């Protein structure tokens, strides 16, 4: 088990332990604020709490930035570990090297969304003189904290569970044969259904965003994020690799494909983040935020860039894969 303690993994842990410490401080402050915050009070306690909100906010903001960096670093580490783990050609193999891998990945992404939403609330809160959302944003943080702890536990379980001697299956099999995992099964939906679904969802997204039916738009963004990833694996990716049997969400992150994956995932993340964020905030703090333009912009950019590959292939070769 110890073989996986490469410098990269150690760095990931050092960073996470530090973040854990600071987030725990933020958690304690958040709890106090949630219990006792009252802007109308002139007591010393309230005064101290007001000061502490800044510390908690600073920590949470910093955590988000660090989490984004360390997520990229994590993906990079997975890719690198594929050299160590037999059978792994890219991050997929490393992820499946332990049962916890896929959940860890999901939680890491989820938490970036959650921390990001916190920042959206914070921005609206700090603009108003009566700090109307201070209590609710810190209540929400209490909840985020538990997700963060789960992520940490999963990460420890994951890295200690990997056995570098054991052969793993990689993208070649995970997404091709009859797969038992939920994600694997989603990619089994035939392209003839999933690709039209992807495009019609996108049209619906634009429509609901223009109509400002916020909640529906948020839900659609969430579904869109999932369908985007599955169609990327089952359809669009094959045109990036120009190989009908290569189904992989990780290999596009490698230099062989000019790191195009980083671009695609960033576009998709920003687009859906704001889409879901608007709905989430409307539900949580009943504040309509106008980030629709950003959401539409990035989602459109994603759809255009991802569509480029099959179209380009068809124009050059006159056939579909």
């Amino acid at each position, binding site marked *: 088990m110890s073989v996986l303690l490469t410098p990269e993994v150690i760095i990931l842990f050092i960073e996470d332990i530090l973040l854990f410490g600071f987030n725990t401080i933020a958690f304690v402050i958040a709890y106090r604020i949630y219990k006792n915050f009252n*802007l*109308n009070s*002139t007591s*010393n306690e309230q*005064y101290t709490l*007001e000061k502490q909100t800044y510390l908690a906010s600073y920590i949470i903001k910093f955590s988000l930035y660090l989490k984004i960096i360390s997520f990229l670093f994590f993906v990079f580490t997975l890719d690198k570990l594929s050299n160590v783990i037999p059978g792994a050609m890219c991050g997929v193999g490393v992820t499946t090297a332990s049962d916890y891998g896929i959940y860890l990945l999901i939680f890491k992404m989820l938490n970036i969304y959650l921390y990001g939403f916190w920042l959206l609330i914070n921005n609206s809160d*700090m603009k108003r*003189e009566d*700090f109307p959302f201070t209590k609710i944003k810190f209540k929400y943080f209490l909840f985020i904290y538990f997700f963060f702890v789960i992520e940490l536990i999963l990460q420890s379980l994951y890295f200690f569970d990997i056995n570098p001697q054991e052969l793993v299956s990689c993208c070649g099999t995970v997404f091709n044969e009859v797969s038992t995992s939920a994600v694997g099964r989603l990619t089994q939906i035939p392209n003839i259904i999933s690709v039209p679904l992807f495009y019609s969802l996108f049209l619906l997204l634009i429509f609901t965003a223009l109509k400002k039916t916020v909640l529906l738009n948020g839900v659609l963004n969430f579904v869109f994020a999932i369908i985007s990833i599955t169609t990327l694996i089952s359809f669009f990716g094959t045109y990036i690799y120009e190989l009908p049997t290569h189904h992989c969400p990780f290999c596009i992150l490698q230099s062989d494909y000019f790191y195009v994956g980083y671009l695609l995932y960033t576009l998709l993340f920003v687009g859906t983040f704001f889409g879901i964020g608007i709905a989430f905030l409307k539900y949580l703090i009943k504040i309509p935020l106008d980030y629709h333009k950003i959401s539409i912009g990035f989602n459109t950019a994603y759809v255009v860039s991802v569509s480029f590959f099959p179209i380009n292939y068809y124009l050059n070769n006159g056939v579909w894969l």
Partner: protein
Amino acid sequence: MIELKSVDKIYSHGEHEEIGVLKNISFSVKENEFSLLTGPSGSGKSTILSIVGGLSKPTNGEVIIDNKSIAKLPDKFSALLRREKIGFIFQKFNLINNLSAIDNITIPLIPTKISKSEIEQRAEKIMTELSIFNKRDVLVEKLSGGEQQRVAIARALVNEPKIILADEPTANLDKKLSLDFIQIIKQLKDAGKTILLASHDPLFTDLDCINNIIKIHLGEIQ
């Protein structure tokens, strides 16, 4: 422009020790008026100024600045208010020693969106008016007391405030410089500023440009 309604200020240290510094202070200063706060040392003049400027919060009562209640305004917004509407001249000048005159004067506008060149233009204009332009790049610790105070005044004016608050502005100046200062403050009044000045310097008491005098004793208005 400035209005205080039954303001109390009580400092509490720990559970039991409470020090009442201000009791039931009410007064108002109208736009373009010049009010003088006087009273012996320790009577609470500086405390009133810091409450008016939003540097500290009253324990009870209402404080209204330019039609806006600030008694319970969070620090974030009272800082904004100071940045936009108030120029502060402190007793001890409160300059940052290792910075040049111009760098001291531009400080209030650094966090704003105003461009660096415009800020410097503004500062230079004020420095010219206060005839300290030739000291533009001199470190403030190398300046004389009178020059230091002009830098402090320039800093208070750079954000083009409606309100000027001054705490014992002549305490560290000799007679001549104090008279110079009074000339400057007169000009400010003529320029339309609202002024609240705390001082027990007798030079101020019989100035004709003063609209009203507020006498404080042991935290109360007499």
